[in-house]
């Protein structure tokens, strides 16, 4: 039976093709270098993060093997120092924060029903600088110049007297790269969330993930300047003989710690708060009901963000600060357990009162809740200054920080990866292998890290490359090594599942999980322009209240890249903004900044001369492409 072509469907297909051609990148290498597509940029971030997690994981395994028995000599102290420094610096600066930004870069425009970020070229620039930070740390490592003072390099040890050479400079400048990248991404995310919400998505109807990313990005903009400032001061002490951290010149090494932890503690929440957004989205979808206590969750996120800036001294209890200060920071550190607890209860209430379906994303949430609660409880213990004095610099701290960072952020991230994978690729991941990976990772992690609490209580210090048999730590260390190995094996299963499911996974369709938010309205994978039309929102769960048919508006440009700009509070449409075309200038600007950052390790003049190519590339980046003025002495013929 033959049927006549449907003219309506044909017109819709032509419309989609036209939009896709306007929003597509050029083919080949040129398109690769010039893209400003948020999905491609995010994918690059995520691939880089996966590679770095593998490398840092191998370092961890290497260290665990070294510690698996007393008196092993497969690593010497210097190699051990380099290994934990590289592991920590990679995981904190090159994995944890960037991967959360990457998820936002990918997801925020989709969840807003938008076609791109607010500042697409800034998104590309952010990635290139992040890549610069990765190379800044790992290329010198390959050349045998590896930072060896941990992931926070306190002076005076990192100062010019005790750390000649360039190991400390490389660490400090790696931070400058990644923090500029993170700040660029954060401004982009804030502007996108505040000014590019679809009609109807008032602040009150904004999904928690968007709240989480808005708050996280604002935190980033306040916290990260501190670490940029302090590492710049360290470089200045090393390069041009300033005296910021030199007591003989009136400086103070403790100042470094204050500034570092003014950044460092909020950073923990900059990593954790996006995870609360993932968890909320997953819990809502797989409980098949709107999240319990949305307002309480939003207020909890805001409370955590505010309190996070009042806690940094709890990393410095052993420094010898005034008692009253320690008391204040103990109280503040314990207070943050309240909003964190409210969140946990809201998620449990949602699952409890819903119709939960324990697919892999929700399994990860369950793993997160169990593990993070343990990390939270050990956090309350270390928040107490007297107890912390006993526990500081022991394996108890190693256990605690891994429970909160891996349990609190990486487990939700893996759940998020499983949850949104079908949207990104159009394929489902294998549930069977997903469950196996989950069991290996969560089981291996707990087997590997729980014994470290006991080792810490028994007095085993962190950052030692070996220990004597008389200490009695051998058995628990062996258990920890076995657990870590199982977890890493699980990680390989997870990555293999993700990799192979691109070919073997069954087709996902637009909304395989029955999700409630707008990204599920786009095809899987989304086309270059994401959505044919602009969605109109009337609730917190637009896909559920739409009744199978989503209200949309048309009218954005078909011949050029346009995005909708709306008002900050009520998301009322205001105007159509031209969205920038692909460009090579973000990459060139990134290279210019790289030259300056690398050069400034060797000479301060790099900052002066390096500013010239940066200024030139930024000028070309922002140079508006419009016609010359038609009259007057500067008219077009001068060209």
């Amino acid at each position, binding site marked *: 039976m033959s049927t006549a072509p449907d003219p309506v469907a044909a017109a819709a297909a032509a419309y989609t093709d036209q939009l896709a051609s306007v929003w597509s990148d050029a083919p080949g290498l040129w398109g690769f270098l010039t893209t400003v597509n948020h999905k491609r940029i995010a994918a690059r971030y995520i691939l880089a993060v996966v590679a770095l997690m593998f490398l840092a994981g191998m370092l961890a395994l290497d260290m665990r093997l070294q510690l698996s028995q007393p008196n092993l000599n497969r690593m010497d102290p210097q190699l051990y120092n380099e290994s934990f420094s590289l592991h920590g610096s990679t995981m904190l600066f090159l994995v944890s924060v960037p991967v959360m930004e990457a998820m936002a870069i990918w997801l925020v425009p989709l969840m807003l029903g938008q076609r791109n970020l607010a500042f697409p070229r800034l998104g590309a620039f952010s990635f290139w600088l992040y890549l610069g930070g990765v190379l800044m740390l790992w290329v010198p490592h390959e050349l045998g110049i590896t930072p060896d003072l941990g992931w926070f390099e306190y002076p005076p040890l990192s100062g010019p007297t005790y750390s000649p050479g360039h190991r400390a400079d490389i660490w400090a400048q790696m931070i400058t790269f990644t923090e500029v990248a993170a700040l660029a991404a954060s*401004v982009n995310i804030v*502007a996108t969330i505040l000014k590019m919400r679809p009609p109807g998505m008032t602040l009150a109807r904004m999904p928690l993930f968007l709240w989480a990313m808005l708050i996280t990005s604002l935190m980033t903009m306040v916290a990260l300047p501190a670490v940029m400032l302090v590492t710049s*001061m360290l470089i200045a002490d090393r390069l041009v003989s*300033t005296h910021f951290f030199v007591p003989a010149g009136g400086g103070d090494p403790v100042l470094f710690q204050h500034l570092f932890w003014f950044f460092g503690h909020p950073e923990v929440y900059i990593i954790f708060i996006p995870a609360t957004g993932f968890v909320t989205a997953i819990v809502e979808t797989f409980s098949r009901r709107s999240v319990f206590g949305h307002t309480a969750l939003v207020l909890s996120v805001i409370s955590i963000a505010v309190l996070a800036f009042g806690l940094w001294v709890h990393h410095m209890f052993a420094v010898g600060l005034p008692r009253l200060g320690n008391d204040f920071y103990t109280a503040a550190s314990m207070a943050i357990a309240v909003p964190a607890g409210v969140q946990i209860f809201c998620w449990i209430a949602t699952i409890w009162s819903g119709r939960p379906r324990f697919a892999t994303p929700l399994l990860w949430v369950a793993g997160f809740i169990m593990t993070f609660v343990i990390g939270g409880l050990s956090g309350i213990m270390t928040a107490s200054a007297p107890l912390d004095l006993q526990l500081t610099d022991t394996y108890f701290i190693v256990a605690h920080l891994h429970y909160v960072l891996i349990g609190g952020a990486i487990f939700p991230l893996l759940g998020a990866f499983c949850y949104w994978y079908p949207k990104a690729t159009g394929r489902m991941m294998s549930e069977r292998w997903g469950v196996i990976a989950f069991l290996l990772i969560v089981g291996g992690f707990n087997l590997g890290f729980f014994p470290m609490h006991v080792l810490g209580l028994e007095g085993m210090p962190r950052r030692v490359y070996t220990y004597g048999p008389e200490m009695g730590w051998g058995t628990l260390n062996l258990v920890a090594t076995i657990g870590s190995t199982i977890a890493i094996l699980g990680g390989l299963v997870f990555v293999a599942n993700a990799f192979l499911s691109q070919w073997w996974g069954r087709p996902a369709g637009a909304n395989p999980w029955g999700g409630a938010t707008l990204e599920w309205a786009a095809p899987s994978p989304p086309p270059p322009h994401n959505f044919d039309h602009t969605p109109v929102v009337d609730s917190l769960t637009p896909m559920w209240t739409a009744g*199978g048919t989503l*209200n949309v508006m048309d009218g954005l440009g078909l011949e050029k890249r346009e995005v*909708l700009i709306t008002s900050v509070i009520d998301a009322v449409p205001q105007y159509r903004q031209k969205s920038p075309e692909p460009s090579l200038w973000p990459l060139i600007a990134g290279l210019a900044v790289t030259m300056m950052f690398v050069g400034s390790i060797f000479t301060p003049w790099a900052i002066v001369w390096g500013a010239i190519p940066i200024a030139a590339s930024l000028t070309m980046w922002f*140079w508006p492409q419009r016609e010359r003025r038609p009259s007057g002495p500067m008219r077009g013929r001068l060209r």
Partner: protein
Amino acid sequence: MTDAIATRRVGSLSGLPESAEGARHLVWWGNIGFMMIEGTGFVLAAGVYLYLRSQSHGWPTAGAHLPDLMWSTIFTVGLVLSELPNLWVLKCARTQNTRGVRIGTLVMTLIGVALAGLRWMELQHLNAPWYESAYGSVVWMLMVLHTSHVVTDLGDTGVQSAWLFTHAIGDDQFADVEDNANYWTFVVLAWLPIYFMIYWLPRLG
């Protein structure tokens, strides 16, 4: 778009304008974002100054001297007065006065050059090398931080002026002029507490 969900058209955005001004414009928010980052940097740098001062027995520390007032005060008065033409440029941008923004950005560029010269003279009279004491280090850090903003905005204004004189100006470029003028106001406002802190706070005790 085979697997997209069904949609119902409820309106059109085609009647919306293609640009906006002030806080309605997207770029205005990006500008505010970077001011927030840089403002945090200034606050933290000021915190470093006050922290080191609180840890020191004498301020300036031994061997260093207080900076001279003349050039810094001339610079500061000039900087504050530059707000008058700057606010006029802002007004021209908001009213889409083509001639006004061209001349205004040129004038602001010339003022920026003059202020950079004054700043250069000011740097010659800080009386405390950065490499001799923590006091000198932090004073120079604050000066370099602010000077980099003066120079950046001078470069931006100069390029903008060159573009405006040679091209037909659209709505988005008026918005750019507005953002640049707002940024200059930020540079002016950021300086006033630093000026007070470096030049007057030690003198007041």
